[in-house]
């Protein structure tokens, strides 16, 4: 579904982060991208989101080359994604309002878009319906991320990109949201790609794990982690093994 073909990307005057990089993601997969800071994991996510442009090579999704944000791709960032002056309900509605604002033009909103603004079922699904009239400053970090997830899922994306979405949250809330995210992606048939710097999170979330090293990245380091996402996976030896492997690989990568 996602084809990264011969991707080269770098910020000007610097060593490229990616050089002739190839990578493929199939529909319905859940991926974790891990690597130390500066390895380019966030850049890769922004490239997939159409917010950055490759220096050369191309990224195509469903056969279409990405040149700008694509209506079917949702993006959730660590923080600051909510409008401070809007309530939870208004923030969650924002994606729909942006689409209503442009109409179904196929560029900002899919051509099949129908005007709608009923966000409440999504707020209920994410357990934040009772916070609908609160402002972001009045709710917890976990609740803010639930709002961001509701806002994105209300647009019925087929790909969900997440950039360290839970790294500022408490452990219990983080695990809750990790499970909820996997559950929702399964339920909605969404392909998930999550960037993280935490080994444990990568091991829990990614049935496949992409490990990025020091730039330039030329070949994807891929680790299979088939049973991730199952309940109680954290308690298994398999989980501990993949954590160990990833830790070793990351240490080797760090000069």
């Amino acid at each position, binding site marked *: 579904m996602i084809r990264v073909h011969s991707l080269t990307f770098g910020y000007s005057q610097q060593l490229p982060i990616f050089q002739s990089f190839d990578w493929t993601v199939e529909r319905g997969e859940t991926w974790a991208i891990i690597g130390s800071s500066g390895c380019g994991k966030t850049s890769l996510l922004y490239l997939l*989101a159409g917010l950055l442009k490759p220096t050369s090579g191309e990224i195509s999704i469903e056969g279409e080359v990405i040149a700008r944000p694509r209506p079917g791709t*949702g993006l*959730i*960032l660590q923080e600051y994604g909510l409008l401070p002056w809007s309530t939870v309900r208004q923030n969650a509605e924002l994606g729909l309002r*942006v689409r209503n604002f*442009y109409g179904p033009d196929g*560029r900002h909103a899919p051509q099949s878009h129908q005007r709608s603004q009923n966000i409440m079922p999504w707020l209920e699904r994410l357990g934040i319906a009772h916070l609908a009239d609160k*402002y972001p*400053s009045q709710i917890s970090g976990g609740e803010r991320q639930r709002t961001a997830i509701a806002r994105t899922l209300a647009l019925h994306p087929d790909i969900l990109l997440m950039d360290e979405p839970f790294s500022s949250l408490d452990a219990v809330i983080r695990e809750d949201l990790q499970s909820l995210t996997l559950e929702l992606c399964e339920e909605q048939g969404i392909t998930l790609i999550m960037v993280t710097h935490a080994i444990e999170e990568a091991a829990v979330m990614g049935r496949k794990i992409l490990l990025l090293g020091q730039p330039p990245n030329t070949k994807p380091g891929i680790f299979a982690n088939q049973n991730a996402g199952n309940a109680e996976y954290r308690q298994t030896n398999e989980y501990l093994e993949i954590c160990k492997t990833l830790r070793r690989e990351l240490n080797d990568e760090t000069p």
Partner: protein
Amino acid sequence: MKRRDVLLAALGLLILWQAAAMLVNRPILPTPIVVTRVFFSELTRGLSDHALASLWRVMAGTMLSVLTAVPAGLAVGGSARLNRFVSPIIYLLYPIPKVVFVPVILLFLGIGDAAKIAIIFLILFFQIVVLVRDQAAALPPQLFQSLRSLGAGRRALFRFVYLPASLPAILTALRQSVGTAVAVLYIAELFATQRGLGYYIYYNGSTLLNYPAMYAGVIAMSLLGLGLYFTVDWLERILCPWKFVN
């Protein structure tokens, strides 16, 4: 701040005035009771016309500055390149007390309302540009990336991010400078006009030596300033409810 506390403070100030007037005991400082009586009788004898003339000048100057300074501030704050070019200019012009331009503006724009409105415009314009620019520049890039990923282009970013983000900055700028604007309006209305509270106060105080009427004018001008200040407060509560939670 509680409304009751504000009323109590007003009462305290009036008592202080009354005591001072009784101590001084000269025509140049009449008591608040005398002034209040004259204030109401003067309202029907032209004071309200003068007040309306002043109010119109302040409102027109404010509207004009908001309508021009907000787009300018958003444009500068939203573009690092433009900011680099314009900021040194603003940096030089911003601290200059605009009131010194009153004679210049009167020379260029003459005796009509245009000169008075231009002066108020000049004072408010820089305040609003600076605050809106800083507000726009301080918006976290993550906010824009999130919105662009939701499909927002330039127009939607303007509608859903820049415009609402500039509102509190506009109101802060107005709160900070509306008092100055009224003060400078007084100066501007001393010259080449026979309408406006500035003229009314000066004419009654220096030419007619009608001190109670002069103080009635001072009261009217204070009420004008206070009214504008309260209006800004009220607008902020209506337009920025998120600032008043917690």
